[in-house]
């Protein structure tokens, strides 16, 4: 599984959506139910999957699919 496939699977699992729903509009304002529990569930799964530890500010930044990719780039995760 490639890194982008891993990331997509995490998003799909946490938000119970199809991969086709993941685009630049997928964020905490447009996705119903994107609350702190979902966000922290997301970051926790990402940390486990990519074996990284996100800084607090990066966890707070994890508010959209695009932001997730930007944050992961900071940790040298090539998507």
């Amino acid at each position: 599984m490639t890194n982008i496939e891993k990331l997509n699977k995490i998003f799909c699992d946490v938000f119970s959506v199809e991969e086709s729903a993941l685009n630049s509009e997928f964020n905490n304002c447009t996705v119903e139910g994107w609350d702190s529990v979902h966000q922290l569930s997301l970051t926790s799964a990402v940390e486990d999957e990519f074996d990284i530890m996100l800084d607090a500010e990066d966890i707070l930044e994890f508010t959209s699919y695009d932001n997730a990719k930007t944050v992961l780039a900071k940790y040298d995760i090539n998507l």
Partner: protein
Amino acid sequence: MAYWEIKNVALRGVTGTVPNNPVKSAELDIFTQEDAELFDSTVGILNRYLAPDDVCASDLCYDAAERLVAGLGWEKDSIDVLVFASVTGDYKTPPTSSILQDRLGLPTSTFVVDLPMGCCGTLYAINMAGNMLSAGTVKRALLLIGDTASRMGSYKDKSRVPLFGDAGMAMALEYDATAEKIAIEMNTLGSGYKALMTPHGGYRHPITKEDSFVEEDFGNGIIRAPKDALINGMDVFSFAITKPPVSIKKMMERYELTIDNVDYFLIHQANKLIVDRIVKKLKLPLEKTPYDLQEFGNLGGASIPMLMTYNLADELQSRPLTMVCSAFGLGLTWGTMVLKTQRVRVLPINKI
């Protein structure tokens, strides 16, 4: 720097009482089955004990206190200090500690104080009472730490309801010239106070029928009025994973403590996400970091004595322990305590 070394004070006993009303996440009205499963696996709080509307924190603490005093064989006349650490006192005035002095039949010579310091309640209580006992002019203190936090907020607030459980703990401190010193450091970040607060009901914004009860829908299952306690999950999370680990590390360096010469790390059981991250950040071994949040939820200030009672009863009673205790919450405040115990009497948790 707010930092203390309390000499001549020993922890003699601890116990706790919870309402006999266990509630699983899936039983909460605000959750669908799917919500409850995600909450359980992410936040880790599978169960909590919730007080009915006619049970106060003082009732739970009273039960714990009566049992502990009897278990230790303490004469009530020998108790000099009574601390009640809670944000859910019986009344706005008078202090609940004065009511408990009478209820418990303690002498009128008892010094009483309420400490509404939230999740750091145990550290504040030990710090204040410990410093009072240290000189030896008073010998015994009863610390009652508890909350009915479930009653503070809106039952329609999904960001808050499932997190908290209710409990009342009692701890007994005594002057003892042979006791190991208790080290405590405390910190405050007042600029973050809005992360955990009850907007109306104090004198800044007294309760008014015009606006204090008006519910607002904040989305994602969060409906509450200004009279209800609120929690800004992401702000609290960010604070809790950043500040406490620095404090723990500092205290461990100051006292030359390592993973090897500490028996247990008692981390305030805010939720699994926060505790896991502190554990991970400090590389603490899981076998030295007990969890009880799966059973009790976030108990506020009662969290640390509940870990002692629920997870460490046998060991506290049978051998000396070195514990590093970390608390963080309201204020925002946080701190670390290094507590070395000899044999401590631990009575089983009671459900009433």
